[in-house]
């Protein structure tokens, strides 16, 4: 699998560290309630197919949102977290 870092271009997967589903950047408000936090911290869709997750590119330190397929390893696209969330 090769992932495109928005700053460095297409790189081998071994340069990246997996950081879980991209829902991590949509943190609920501190007072959102127990159910919302349970959802955010523990429950996962865990899809067999299209997913979106976070990868950290070691060499440049960028956090990247990657669209990929969990069944085929196809990478559909990527963007920098910094561009989505400021």
């Amino acid at each position: 699998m090769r992932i495109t870092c928005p700053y460095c271009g297409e790189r081998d997967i071994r340069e990246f560290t997996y950081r879980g589903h991209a829902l991590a950047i949509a943190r609920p408000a501190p007072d959102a309630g127990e159910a919302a936090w349970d959802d955010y911290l523990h429950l996962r869709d865990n899809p067999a197919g299209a997913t979106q997750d976070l990868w950290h590119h070691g060499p440049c330190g960028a956090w990247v949102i990657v669209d990929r397929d969990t069944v085929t390893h196809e990478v559909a696209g990527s963007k920098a977290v910094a561009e989505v969330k400021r």
Partner: protein
Amino acid sequence: MKRYSAFAVAREGLRHHAGWERAWKSPAPKPSYDVIIVGAGGHGLATAYYLGKNFGITNVAVIEKGWLGGGNTGRNTTIIRSNYLQDPSAAIYEKARSLYEDLSQDLNYNVMFSPRGVMMLAQTHHEIRGYQRTAHANALQGVETEFIGPERVKELCPIIETRGPRYPVLGALWQPRGGTARHDAVAWGYARACSDMGMDIIQKCEVTGVTQEGGQVTGVETTKGHIGCTKLGIVVAGHSGVLADMAGFRLPIESVALQALVSEPIKPCMDVVVMANTVHGYMSQSDKGEMVIGGGADGYNNYTQRGSFHHIEETVRALIETFPIISRLKMLRMWGGIVDMTGDRSPIISPTPLGNTFINCGWGTGGFKAIPGSGWATAEMIARGTPGPLAAEFGLNRFREGRFIDESVAAGVAH
């Protein structure tokens, strides 16, 4: 069912083996059952078996999308041990290990349980402390384990390099009654016994939907049509998230590929199982002489039953330091299975948000050893409608309530 025995072998030998019967039937599904179990891996089949044996519930179907035992049950490295740290884990894994002791007699099927002993190497000072702690916990739990020094390690397994420069062996956690069993035979033995009790094992039948009415399950949609049920057990390991989605809830589970490989067969050179958790590798020798090697899981979620090549490379590279003898072996085969990981690395045996629907999952990288105990506990939960003492702590709500059963620190490796 005709029993297997020395006498039967002699009898069939005298009549050209014409009298062996099929080990289990392959019936068409009935319109409905008291209990449907989805997934004919070890855990699903054991659940069905103990439903019949312990509770007399035999109007049961086990539905499997592929062939029985074709999931992780037929892909694992068959290590059996019960030296866990937390009390609920020790209880269920030790129950399973003790059931393995006479499972062949119980099922009248040779599962080749071989209590050859399992050692988990301590290769850092941190590990020494961790395993001494586990040995003390095991003593309190009634699980027989012992912390042994490097000389004893070398005596039990002469092919280990104990004085390696990078990770010398400083000791090990030793469980003499741990070992291995034949994975396929476990699935086949349970399937034969279930079929004999009148249960239907339906292979090549994929569950594609879960039907419900008023918050209660009513059956499943399958590639062989709708099949009704009063109670549903979901026991599909890596595909638990997919089934949960059909039933309308989410799980604290993520699926990843875990790999194993075997070498060409060589003469017997090790008669114990060795796990080296710091370097992420473990090894045993099969009865055929192959070195069976397991490594770490892929570092990211996926459903590709093969895994990444660089993980194999890392595993083998690490093991060669501890077992220099394998450096020139050819590796014959590698394969992967999709394992279901929870955050605390402990399983889930629980009722679900859908009425009369139960789930058994989250065994991740280490559920082969648990099959008999897990089936025992899951059958009890399905029969009674509520978890018994073995399953009580493994509920889905433990995440929300912060009652984790943290085994990730204790093992920290696929096993």
